[in-house]
């Protein structure tokens, strides 16, 4: 906490810690629906402005003439205690905005990659992304009504998901089901942390 302001802030309550979980996946896979199922606020949208060259967020004023694009991210909030808030951030659907994913996963507890079994190939890019990052993640198969149901192991094989990545079925509209996804992410993060500790890695996040 920045106590430079404590004089004016008066009797400040205790330090508030905020954590975040990232919900990744292709366009239209149900990320915002999933966030909305557990969030205490209607999912909000925050926008970042970038150049077409993707040189950096909100940095286009330094390169006048470059085309700019707005990247939107939806997010929700769960206030767990007066000193603990969990945020859920959905990644931008378009996978060309990788740099924005980098900002989102920095410091995250973990991630869930949401997969639509009707458009399974949309999951390749997000899964590739997490494959190469130091962040615990699981795969959640969003079961839309009428979607072809595959056995989870068929999906694991089709997407070449490694055996140590948990794979679960979910319904992104259902609060209980989404809760289980988030519990799964945190439990996986704990197992990963314990395993790293056992191997003696300092294991930075993000």
């Amino acid at each position, binding site marked *: 906490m920045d106590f430079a302001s404590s004089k*004016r802030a008066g009797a400040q309550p205790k330090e508030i810690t905020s954590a975040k979980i990232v919900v990744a996946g292709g366009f239209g896979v149900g990320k915002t629906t999933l966030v909305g199922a557990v969030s205490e606020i209607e999912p909000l*949208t925050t926008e970042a402005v970038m150049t077409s060259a993707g040189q950096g967020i*909100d940095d286009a004023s330094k390169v006048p003439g470059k085309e700019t694009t*707005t990247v939107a991210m939806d997010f929700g909030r769960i206030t767990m205690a007066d000193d603990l808030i969990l945020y859920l951030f959905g990644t931008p659907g378009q996978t060309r905005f990788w740099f924005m994913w980098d900002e989102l996963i920095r410091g995250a507890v973990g991630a869930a990659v949401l997969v639509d079994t009707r458009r399974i190939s949309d999951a390749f890019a997000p899964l590739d992304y997490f494959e190469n990052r130091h962040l615990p993640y699981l795969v959640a198969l969003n079961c839309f009504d009428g979607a072809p149901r595959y056995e989870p192991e068929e999906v694991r094989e089709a997407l070449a998901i490694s055996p140590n990545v948990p794979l679960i079925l979910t319904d992104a509209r259902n609060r209980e089901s989404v809760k289980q996804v988030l519990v799964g992410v*945190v439990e996986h993060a*704990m197992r990963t942390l314990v395993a790293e500790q056992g191997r003696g890695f300092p294991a930075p*996040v993000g």
Partner: protein
Amino acid sequence: MGQPNDPRGNLVRPYAVTRGRTEPRRDIPIEAVLVASQAAVQEARFAGHDKYRIAVLCEPRAQSLAEIAAYSRLPLGVARVLVADMVADGMLSLHSAAPKEGFTERMDLLERVLSGLRKL
């Protein structure tokens, strides 16, 4: 500035509120929360419309940088510059994002988040 033919397009306009500055005075994670005291809200009255609105937003309850940007309808980068200024000027207190290092600290946080989720 901001004319239809301006090659800088509509990016310049959002940064008008920061007088063109695009670099925040300090990095603030998107999920870090900020709180304003009542005294800080009074002080922010003289700091311009955007900063005042941000202070008012953060007085009743802590808000993350992402929420501040969304409620103020400011791009994330613009909100970050304003919020970093307000932290430096003592109008907002910045609280911490999740610990990135230390087994015990990280495990404690994960346990608290897990129990919070189970209670939902």
